[in-house]
Every structure is written in structure tokens, then in C-alpha cells.
């Protein structure tokens, strides 16, 4: 927890028994596992910027100006939320669908040349 006055407040937390998922290696090399986490995190960052851009566009259309506060305080309509969700899901499928590819028949190129 951040070093702050929080440290002076009463604590109601106990000691947890930690999970060990952080040490899990699924892809044969922990760095490959890290890369999977990276590419998902990158998707989240890209979507975050895209959604911000959508809001900026909308504010310029409706208000003719935009400030950081206006972006943060923007309340989307139900229709916009549904449209954003559909766009997000399409983006996820477009970018990550290859992960579902059954590559069990694939071989390294070097092996094929032999």
C-alpha cells in the first residue's frame, strides 16, 4: 500500500495465504508467458485510447470544444455503451483470433527443409 496516512489507520486485513499463479509457466518458457500478458495488456491500452478518441469526437460534435475534465465526466448513452462493446468485441476477435488456431500440425521451417 502507498506510504501515506493510510498506514496510521486501523487495519481490518488479515494475512492471506498467497496463490502461486505468478509462477505458472504454460508456454514452455516463462518469457513467452510474459509476452502473452504483454499483448493482452497492449490491447487494453489501445482500446483505452480508442475509447477516449470516440469521446473526444462526440464532444466536439455536441459541444464544439473538449477539455480533460469533460472527457472524464462524459456519460455515454445506453446505445453508445452497446456500440462500444460491439466495437471492442470485434477488435478482440480481429486481433486475438489467431490464438485459437490449432497449430498441432505445424512444424518449424528449418525442420521442414531437412
Amino acid at each position, binding site marked *: *500500500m*502507498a506510504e501515506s*496516512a*493510510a498506514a496510521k*489507520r*486501523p*487495519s*481490518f*486485513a*488479515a*494475512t*492471506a*495465504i*498467497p*496463490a502461486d*499463479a*505468478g509462477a*505458472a509457466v*504454460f*508456454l*514452455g518458457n516463462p518469457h513467452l*508467458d510474459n509476452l*502473452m*500478458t504483454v499483448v*493482452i*495488456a497492449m*490491447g*487494453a*491500452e489501445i*482500446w*483505452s485510447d480508442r*475509447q*477516449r478518441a470516440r*469521446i473526444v469526437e*462526440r464532444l466536439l460534435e*455536441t459541444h464544439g470544444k473538449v477539455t480533460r475534465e*469533460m*472527457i*472524464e*465526466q*462524459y*456519460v*455515454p*448513452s445506453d*446505445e*453508445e*455503451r452497446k456500440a462500444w*462493446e460491439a466495437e*471492442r*468485441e470485434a*477488435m*478482440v*476477435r480481429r486481433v*486475438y*483470433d489467431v*490464438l*485459437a488456431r*490449432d*497449430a*498441432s500440425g505445424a512444424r518449424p521451417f528449418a525442420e521442414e527443409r531437412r
Partner: protein
Amino acid sequence: MDRRTLIGTGTAIAALAAATDIDAAAKPGIPAGNGTKPALPAGTLAPRGRFDRLERLPTLALESRQDFLLSFRAFANRDLTRAASARADAILAEKGVPKDADLPLPQALAMLQDDPLLQTSTRAWISCQQLSWNGLLEEFEGNADRYLAEMEAVDRRGPGTLELNPDLKLPDYTRHEIHIQPGGYVGSEFAGHLYHYGTNGFYSGRNSNDELHIGAAQKLPIPNDGRVRRILDLGTGVGQLAMALKERFPEAEVWGLDAGGPMVRYAHLRAVERNLDINFVQRLAEDTRFPDDHFDLVTSYIMMHEVSPEGTSALIREAYRITRPGGVFYPIDFRLTNAVRRNAAGLYRLWWDHRWNNEVWSLKFRQNGTPQQIRDVGFELNETGPVALAGFGVLNATKPLPNGAA
């Protein structure tokens, strides 16, 4: 104005009630605690406020990233799981094993757990889960003072009460980081915050209005005599079912119990905001400290599978003790029989959820003979209905009336 804006700008704590639903609920024409929030016109600029009953996350960036992870999780649950299942079927076919064979878990694992596609599917799901928790943890711990001040502001306020027992001796089973939630249900001051926002993924977005909890509360059976004066929700977590039960039975005395102090603290905060008179207590489900025959309805919501076999036995005995004759004990949880899980791919998924998503007790829950234990303590058990939560199991237990009583 939302509570974050209030606290964050240093506005007097007393203003909290005046600026939230508490005040709105007191106004004529706006019923209390029913989840209604005046709709804001599209394009309105307002403090971040709520989507339905869920306070929006404090920054657009965090909200957007969590939304993305929600979509990614849906993709993993649907597309990656489908691909992994097809691959598992192919592996079994290569080995001459029927795809619906009822295999022992070790045999299923030996065939499947090293396959790259199945491993990719699992890796992607776990990475998504970790990213979601870490993003939320960074927000709540990074702004700890603000969030702790919010809870402190209402710890001693009503409606309802909050009982915290920081010296409570917690059984080990309560201290695991279930679902790899950082700190689990007891180990972070923000366990309630993390759980509430983190479980959006589990609910596929149907969490902002406590949708499933309200649906379950409406369908839970009541005693045959129709008397519902006292209700207890065991393992209440962030109090979603307790709140929904209070809304269904506004005249009843409703209690929410959880081993996690931070969980009931957050539950109390939410109940106060919604003007709901609920008593939240940090106690153990197997040692509730309530009198014998006290409650008309004792519930739990997807809690039993997070409890050790010993804890389960003890809490079933305790539930029997505190339920009044004719009263109902209805623990909502996953189905104990599920044909889908019997094939190898389903078993594999069940296993990695247990092993890597840290569902510590979920496998034992399915082998624990819970229905028989409920009968053995004296309840009459109906396993067929009513279904309180679609897709989940039915454990509808009634404590018999004394011999000869009508």
C-alpha cells in the same frame, strides 16, 4: 455528485448523505433503495457517477482497460475454450478414447495438459485475470487514503450496523487468494472493492445492477407459513444478495455475515448509500453466535464451494442450529452434477481453474457429499426446485417442525 468527488475534494462527510441516493430516496416519488437512478441524457457531462448501482471507476482509462479485459475474457471463455475443446477431442480421438469418456482426472490431465493450444487458452485466461486484478489493486492501493476515508465515514453510520472483529481467528480456508484475487477475501483492506469490480468478468458485465442477486432473491423459497422476519446471508461478501433480500423483504431484519472484515466494511458502505437497513458482521459461518432457531431464512450465494470440507460440515451444522423449525436454508452454488464437466476437456478446465485460478476447494466441493450432509443434520432437502439462480444447483432445505406441529 458521487462519493468519490465528495471525499476527494474534502467536502464534509456529513454531506455524503445529502448528495447520494440517501437523499434521493427521501424525496417523494423516488422509492428508497430500489436501484432507480434518474437517467442522464446522452452526452451529459456529470461527475463519473454510476452505471446503475455500480459506482463507475474513477478514471476513464481504468474503466476502459477493465472493459477491454471483460471482452477479452468473453473471447477466452467462448472462442478459446471452444478451440481447446475441439483440440482435446482430437487428442482423445488420436488415442482411441471416446470424447465423452468419463475419465479419471489424472488420466485426462496426462493426455491434455501439455498440448500447446490448451496451454495457450489457459495462459490467456490467467493473464487476463491477473491484469484485471492488478489494474484494480493499483487504483485502490494507490489512492488508499481516499478509499479508506470513504469507509471510515460510514463505519458507524446507519441505516444498519457494522461489526468488525479484527482479532477474529480465521481458519486457513478463509485466507486463500481465491480466484487469485490479491489478498483474497481477508488479506487486503480493499477486498470488497476488488471483489466487486473484479467479478464483473465473472458476470460478463451483468453486475452493475446486482442483476443476478436480485433475480435470485426474488426466486428464493420462503417458509411454508410465509413468515420471514429474520434473514441471514452467510459469506455475504460485498452484500449483494443481502441487499436484494432486504429489498424483497423490507420489513425483515437482514444480516450479512462474512469472515472478511474489509468485505463487510465495503458491503456496509454500499448498503448505507442505498439506504438499506442491514446488519453486517465479521464472523465465521460455522460460528455465527446467533441464538438457536433464530432465522426464518438462511442463505449463501456461491460461497459453499470456497469452503473446506471441514468448514462445510461445520457451517451446515450451524445453519441447522440457527434456522427456526419450518425455516429454510438455501445455499446457492454450482451444480454438483454437471455432465459437461465429465468429458476430458471439461475436466481439464475444472482442474486448471482449481490449480491456477486458485479455486482451492472447488474439486472437493463436488466430492463432498454436501446434500447428504444437509440431510444428516436434520434438514428435509429438496434438490429439484425452485431454482433460485438459473444454471446453478438447488439445495432447498427446510428444518422440520417438531413432531405433531402443524
